[in-house]
């Protein structure tokens, strides 16, 4: 083996070792790196009940109820399997809508209601003009009526 080849083998082995080590570290962190828990995980007591944590899911359609003070709002976060009722007082992001993704941060009360200190909207990776969106929605509706 030429010294040049030897150096490339050394670089390759070194890189493989670094990649392997960071792979192990990342897989160990996997549980702790979650930004939010799903309602199913919360229902299964996987979330830290006595601490502040985040729940991510969809805002259940028809669940948003605003209080008369104009600031407080109640809604339900769902992952379609489990639901978590949430109360929040404050301004909501523009993209916060029924049927859309949201991440709420706060504490779970003993009554099972999540008291949120902040609400973030999570949007998806689809970008399309409003006319295309309308067409997609209509197609979904049509597909649903066919199924029923």
């Amino acid at each position, binding site marked *: 083996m030429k010294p*040049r080849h030897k*150096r*490339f083998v050394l*670089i390759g082995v*070194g*890189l493989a070792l*670094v*990649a392997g080590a*960071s792979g192990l570290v*990342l897989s160990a962190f*996997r549980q702790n*790196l*979650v*930004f*939010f828990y*799903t309602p199913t995980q919360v229902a299964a007591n996987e979330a830290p009940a006595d601490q502040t944590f985040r729940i*991510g899911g969809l805002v259940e359609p028809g669940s948003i109820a605003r209080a008369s003070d104009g600031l407080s709002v109640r809604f339900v976060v769902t992952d379609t399997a489990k639901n978590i009722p949430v109360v929040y007082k404050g301004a*909501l*992001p*523009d*993209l*916060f809508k029924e049927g859309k993704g949201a*991440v709420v941060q706060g504490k779970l009360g003993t009554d099972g209601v999540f008291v949120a200190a*902040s*609400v*973030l*909207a*999570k*949007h*998806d*990776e*689809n*970008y*399309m*003009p*409003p*006319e*295309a*969106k*309308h067409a997609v929605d209509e197609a979904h509706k049509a597909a649903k009526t066919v199924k029923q």
Partner: protein
Amino acid sequence: MSGSKINWFKYASPQTFYPLAGRMQPWFAWAAAILAVVGMYVGFFVAPTDAQQGEVYRVIFLHVPAAWMSMFVFLVMAFWSAIGLGFGTRLSFQMAQALAPTGALFCFIALWTGSLWGKPTWGTYWVWDARLTSQLLLMFLYLAYLALANAIEDKSRGDRACAIFALVGAVNVPVIYFSVQWWSTLHQGASISMTKAPTMAATMLMGMLLMAFAAWFYTIAVALARVRLIMLERESGSAWAVQQLARGASA
């Protein structure tokens, strides 16, 4: 070596690469300028409003090309570093170092535009989710690389230290890219990927790709200009560099 093979090492010598880089540089610079103008026009005037986010989504035409470039440049730096360590070619190390400031610039643009995009859509400038945190780590890796490149007086030792740092730091790049798949993040998944059709309207995609190519050509043009300066600085004692400098002074 047989006669039909191209002698790639010819261009690894600063003496032959210096004039070649000088001739290539204006072409890449002009291509970058033209692509950026066309890309901006498509992005801001031709591409439709987004159904979900309205006009604010147009940040994507800066944000995504900058973020792609910031990751890609680090991989290219790692590539040149490996070549440099393996073959002992000084020019490879110089290429890696010429790319670093541009990578850092794009990384900063990605973080900055992302933050401005996050406020009106997510409702926050910053969250510590896996995507944002790993991208911030990339920024620190760039800054550390630049600091390291300037910290070591002995250039050949500095080159090797930087190269090893770039190779190790490159491990962060796939972590950034796959962070949105591996962990639950506030940042949405990829709209463009190797495995599935893009999830965006065609004109939006075109604007974004034009801007991405503009970023590529800009990076190449700037890196070539920077590597020429590095070469002159490093080789200031050699005959060809003295000749170049004399020519530059008389012009």
